[in-house]
């Protein structure tokens, strides 16, 4: 037959390969996908994130079989799963632990990208899809948290949806549109359930697919930040590369085994994780008439929640001053049309910071703290990718950034005090300053020479 595809395989596999790119897909993404051989501990977290995603979907399916998205039954139906459904407690604890562990794994995965410069050219799209996954994951976690219909579910949702009300002009209407009611209610629960179970997971899966396709197009970065495709053998295979399958599949199986030890230890022995994975207040059924004295989001949102709370009316002075300084700097740095336009825009922003309510700017800072990550590939101007070949003081800077993020996270779990508020304001300045000033500091200092080949010590 004319036009029939030529394939090497025979038999059943050949039959399939004539009609579907099975062998070629396996080759392209697994057995002939060359990954750098010097991956270290940090490189487990990508495959682990996939593993947790699968766990969440599978356990989620079983939970949906028994859960009732109805304000009158939701709380009791969760307890029904915990007590009456055979193995229900196991599914529920895996799902609740999985939610937190997803963020643990994703935060570590992002840390890896930050320190080894995995977002740099040509991996900008890998990074952008990744930040998209992070944002979607936050939405997924927030929506899912309403479903147990406890006090923290209810009041947490109330607080977060009310943030949208801070947007000028359309805010209040927008908040009502999101809730489907004037307060968080049965209508809200139903739509959050629909979004949590169908809409967001579909987006998440699509983004994960795009993330991996983009990654396999450009190839993985590595701890040395070297392009392994620059040095190839006579067959055109990267000298420092190794087929993903079987080398990294067996490697990731080991990683998964280690991960499961931690994961199952939590599920079986400390599913509440001291009130940080499952908040104790959330075992009180939602009561719209009783506001809890202290509403704290789950730990993975707390760094951003701290930044939200840090933006007080006084703090907008600091932000306005920063915008003013930036305007002056941009005036001297840029040329032509932008010499006027950028400073004018920045000055307008500085003025609105003092004229629009601080609550709105709090929301902007919280959202901006995540959105800022999208621009990271263009903020970093360092001549090397990996932290290994950066000036030592860069390492200190990264250390401060990560410790600061953890402190912000701690502050977000605590009830606000004057001292804590000042600390989170300083923390917010450090977080934002790290990124906004990156175009300046990332090219400064003495960079170390980058080797031609990756650093690899045989096992």
């Amino acid at each position, binding site marked *: 037959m004319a036009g029939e595809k030529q394939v090497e395989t025979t038999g059943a596999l050949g039959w399939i390969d004539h009609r579907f790119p099975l062998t070629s897909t396996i080759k392209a993404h697994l057995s002939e996908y060359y990954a750098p051989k010097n991956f270290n501990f940090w490189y487990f977290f990508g495959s682990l994130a996939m593993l947790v995603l699968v766990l969440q979907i599978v356990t989620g399916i079983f939970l949906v079989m028994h859960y009732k998205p109805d304000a009158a039954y939701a709380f*009791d139906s969760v307890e029904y799963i915990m*007590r009456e459904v055979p193995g229900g407690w*196991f599914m529920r604890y895996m799902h609740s632990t999985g939610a937190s562990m997803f963020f643990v794994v994703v935060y570590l995965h992002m840390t890896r990208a930050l320190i080894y410069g995995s977002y740099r050219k040509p991996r900008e799209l890998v990074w952008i899809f990744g930040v998209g996954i992070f944002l979607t994951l936050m939405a997924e976690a927030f929506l899912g948290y309403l479903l147990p219909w406890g006090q923290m579910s209810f009041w947490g949702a109330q607080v977060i949806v009310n943030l949208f009300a801070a947007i000028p002009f359309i805010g209040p209407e927008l908040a009502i549109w999101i809730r489907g009611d004037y307060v968080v209610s049965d209508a809200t629960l139903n739509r959050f359930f629909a979004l949590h179970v169908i809409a967001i997971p579909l987006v998440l899966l699509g983004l994960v697919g795009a993330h991996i396709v983009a990654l396999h197009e450009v190839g993985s970065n590595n701890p040395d930040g070297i392009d392994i495709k620059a040095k190839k053998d006579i067959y055109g295979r990267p000298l420092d590369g*190794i087929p993903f399958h079987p080398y990294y599949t067996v490697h990731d199986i080991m990683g998964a085994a280690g991960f499961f030890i931690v994961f199952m*230890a939590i599920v*079986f022995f400390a599913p*509440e994780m001291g009130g940080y994975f499952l908040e104790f207040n959330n075992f009180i*059924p939602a009561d719209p008439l009783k506001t809890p004295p202290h509403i704290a989001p789950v730990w993975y949102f707390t760094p951003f929640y701290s930044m939200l709370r840090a933006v007080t009316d006084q703090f907008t002075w600091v932000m306005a001053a920063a915008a003013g300084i930036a305007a002056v700097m941009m005036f001297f740095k840029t040329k032509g049309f932008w010499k006027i336009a950028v400073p004018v825009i920045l000055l307008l922003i500085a003025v609105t910071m003092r004229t629009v309510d601080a609550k709105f700017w709090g929301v902007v800072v919280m959202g901006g703290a995540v959105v800022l990550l999208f621009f990271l590939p263009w903020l970093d101007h360092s001549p090397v990718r990996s932290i290994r070949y950066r000036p030592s003081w860069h390492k200190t800077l990264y250390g401060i950034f990560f410790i600061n993020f953890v402190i912000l996270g701690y502050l977000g779990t605590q009830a606000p005090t004057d001292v804590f508020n000042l600390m989170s304001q300083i923390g917010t300045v450090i977080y934002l300053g790290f990124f906004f000033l990156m175009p300046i500091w990332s090219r400064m200092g003495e960079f170390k020479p980058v080797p031609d080949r990756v650093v690899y010590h045989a096992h």
Partner: protein
Amino acid sequence: MKMMTKFVSAVVLSMTCAVSMAAGGSYPWDKAPNRLNDNAALQNGAKIFVNNCLNCHSAKSMRYSKLTEIGLTDEQIKKNLLFTGERVGDMMTIAMTRADGTMWFGAAAPDLSVMARSRSRNAGPPGGDYIYTYLRTFYRDTTKPTGWNNLAFPNAGMPHVLWDMQGPRELTSTVVQQVEKDGQPAWEKVTTVYDPEGYWTSNTEPLVGYNGTASETHRFKALDPQLARQYDSDMADLAAFMTWMSDPSQLKRKQIGVWVLLFLGIFFVVAWRLNASYWKHVK
């Protein structure tokens, strides 16, 4: 003059009460003995719970037959715990509606299915400690509508339902606090004694030259120490039962968990050696 002192001390007392309310019950919790693995204790707790609590409070997520998991048989449940025609397979519901509860007590008595869990503190003591403390810190106070007050939960809506199990007690509260005296800050010690009938006397003495911190101590004196000791033990059983009830799978879960981790440990070793055998050729 006497009236004046009484009035002042009443004001002081109401202020300290208001403070302890605002702090959300700052009274330190006693550590409940861990009796989660003691079936006899859990069964005693179940008996006390069903006989005393399950009239105003429900535990609607809990099925009577679940008690077989702490070693009771269907026969025992039927004979000792079911009084008004319930069946072993029924949930622990009550006849009182929320509307009735709100009308009669001001607030409906909460469902207790997961109460022990909900009272736990972040990275702190478990809710069982709270229940153990709460049920043992009632004191008679004639100024309250129910005639009772509580240290762990000031102005609690619930009277001391189990008072006859505990017997009469006397409470001595000593509060060291800073007050304003002639425009100057001064320290004083207020000792208030609540007698077993709920009538109290208060004595304020100024502390000259005191440079410590504010403090609060409460001491109960049981008039029938033996009865009170038995009551403490019963409340430990009840706290253990309510802790178990808040997550009935927990005992089995921890048993299975040991095997799961054992398997994963072995699996990790296999995965580790498998990985090593592939990678030993990579130079």
